């Protein structure tokens, strides 16, 4: 682990520096996903996790297979997919808010609409 700091002065950014950085981002996302109760917070956590994964793809592609572009495109498509996912998820969140007037996961015991609004 000390390599990271020894390389600090040598002018090269080592691969593991990127990996550790994405790791921090990933576990921050995990922490948020597990501990937070707001649906929007959970979504933000998921974005962090996805972003960490993107970084890993790109870094591996760049460092290990510089001539290829698989990791690059994977990151590209992941961004597109996460955009879709976020759009739908936020539509759901808004729908939930409309029915329950809050966005807590704890209050999501019943998936159908409340009787009073039917």
């Amino acid at each position, binding site marked *: 682990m000390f390599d990271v700091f020894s390389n600090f002065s040598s002018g090269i950014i080592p691969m593991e520096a990127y990996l550790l950085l994405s790791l921090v981002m990933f576990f921050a996302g995990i922490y948020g996903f597990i501990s937070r109760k707001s649906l929007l917070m959970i979504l933000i956590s998921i974005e962090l996790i996805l972003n960490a994964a993107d970084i890993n793809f790109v870094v591996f592609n760049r460092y290990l297979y510089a001539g290829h572009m698989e990791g690059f495109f994977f990151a590209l498509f992941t961004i597109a997919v996460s955009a879709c996912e976020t759009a739908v998820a936020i539509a759901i969140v808004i*729908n939930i808010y409309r029915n329950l007037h809050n966005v807590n996961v704890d209050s999501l015991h019943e998936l159908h609409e409340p009787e009073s609004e039917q």
Partner: protein
Amino acid sequence: MAQQIIFYILAIVISVFSIMAVSSKRLIRSATYLLFVLLATAGLYILLGYYYLFAVQTAVYAGGIMILFIFAILLTQKPGDKIAPEPMRQRLLAIALSVIGLAFTAHIIMHNINRVYTLMDTQITTKHIGMTLMGTEKFQYLLPFELISVLLLACIVGGIMIARRR
């Protein structure tokens, strides 16, 4: 040297704002911190030489997705709302899991990388990306591209269907 300084600035920004984003009491602040993280990530892509990805990350993530988040937050929260704090026990468990997982995974990474990888100087032009994306040969990605376009369409329809008032 300049690259290193930039990298460590970005690294500090990402680490700090990631943690702040998931632990903030106010949603709008969380979203803002997330925006910083995403932009810093885009900066990492520049460092790696992937300019196109930088553009996509900035436009789609920092632009599109963040706008969605902010709209959602504005629609569901009143100004100045604070999220009720989660139970301490749950938070401690989550912190424990994250720290153990981080240590474990970091150990594996450090233990298994035993040589220094250096960046090879390659240029990826936008034209090349465009050709790769539109081709049907090996290592070309027309099919996933089309799939993504269909997925986007489905997600537009789905988003409207779910969110519209009945």
